[in-house]
């Protein structure tokens, strides 16, 4: 499984590096969305850092949906899907590899946007730094859930519109827990209970993906 995971993750990341969709499309989209969120708050709320975590995760939700779709589009050509299927790769390894690649991409985007919240939304730098570990774990859990739901909708009619509808109920607890742990890092409330929720979600979605990805591929 580990061998296949490295193989698939390396392939997805190489394709992303070659196509530069993340660099030239997704990151600018996220930055603009964050800027617009800051403008929507207005000058009266400048320096009010309490809105930062929520807006950060709202933008990350949009970015994650784009990246999940992109992750599945790579495999979407019918000929590619068929010929890769005939390689007989271990589906658990494919899931871990795709989730890993998506995670790396979300981490890269997340760190850029986290810096954006400090610059645009005036979130405290120290708080943002303290929040980094919880952001990374939350995005890892989003990657696992997103890869699972991406496989569920891949190749179906209206996959791009169906994906957000299916994902939102699964993402909502993660986004809330992520936002709460980010707020806690800024000094608003306890930190560890929200960390626990995100970690449990990461293990649960990772385990479900390893167990179910093969079934979803076959269907």
């Amino acid at each position, binding site marked *: 499984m580990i061998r*296949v995971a490295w*193989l698939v993750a390396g392939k997805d990341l190489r394709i992303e590096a070659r196509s530069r969709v993340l660099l030239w499309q997704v990151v600018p989209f996220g930055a603009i969305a964050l800027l617009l969120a800051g403008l929507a708050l207005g000058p009266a709320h400048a320096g009010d850092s309490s809105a930062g975590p929520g807006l950060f995760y709202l933008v990350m939700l949009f970015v994650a949906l784009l990246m999940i779709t992109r992750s599945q589009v790579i495999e979407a050509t019918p000929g590619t899907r068929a010929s890769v*299927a005939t390689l*007989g790769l271990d589906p658990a390894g494919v899931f871990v590899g795709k989730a890993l690649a998506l995670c790396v991409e979300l981490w890269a985007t997340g760190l850029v946007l986290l810096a954006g919240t400090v610059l645009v939304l005036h979130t405290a730098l120290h708080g943002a730094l303290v929040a980094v570990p919880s952001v990374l774990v939350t995005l890892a859990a989003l990657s696992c859930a997103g890869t699972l739901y991406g496989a569920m909708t891949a190749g179906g009619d209206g996959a791009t519109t169906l994906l957000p509808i299916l994902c939102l109920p699964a993402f909502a607890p993660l986004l809330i827990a992520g936002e709460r742990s980010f707020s806690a890092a800024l000094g608003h409330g306890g930190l560890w209970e929200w960390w626990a929720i995100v970690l449990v979600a990461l293990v649960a979605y990772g385990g479900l993906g390893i167990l179910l990805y093969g079934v979803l591929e076959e269907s």
Partner: protein
Amino acid sequence: MRSGPLVHLADAVVFANGFPLLSGVDLDLAPASLNVLTGANGAGKTSLLRLLAGLVPLTSGEGTVCGIDLRNGDRRQLRRRVGWLGHEGSFYADLSVEENLRFCARALQRPLTGIGEVLERVGLESRSGTTTKQLSAGQRRRLGLAWLLLRRAELWLLDEPYASLDDQGREFFDRLLAEVTAAGATVVVSAHDPLRSGALRPRTVHLAGGRVQGESR
């Protein structure tokens, strides 16, 4: 060498989304043989190839491919023993020619040293660093052949491989298919019309309405 047929289908039926793709196919394919499936659009050529590749389940009837029972055998094991070349392209468009082959070799745990040899054999050695989406249709088809050569599959399944190939490309394809068949692989090609090549003497199976309607040689 296998003594019985490599492919045996008896009254094979495949349904997808309530629609019959194959409605009772009887077919035996000998090892080391070249076979062409012909028929109009929707006759069931691609569906039959997909069944032989283990990509769709057998709904009813009997089927054995490479010794694996299609009803209750491990279809993932079967897939590792067949090679598929689709007419839409069978690789990652943003990876280079060599990167696609490296991915295939690593997935199958084959040595990477064979890549140079197969690239030379299909005439793509000067294109190894070219991104696949920059290749012409004929070059992409050659890359598909390199992918199959690297796999050393027992059963080659080629879906409309002659589409958009010029005469030179067709001749190259014919020559290679003759070589791999002589080397012991079984090849199944889908095509709208019987092969024009005089060099090959394939068995031609005509499909219509998801059934075998006749055959010729």
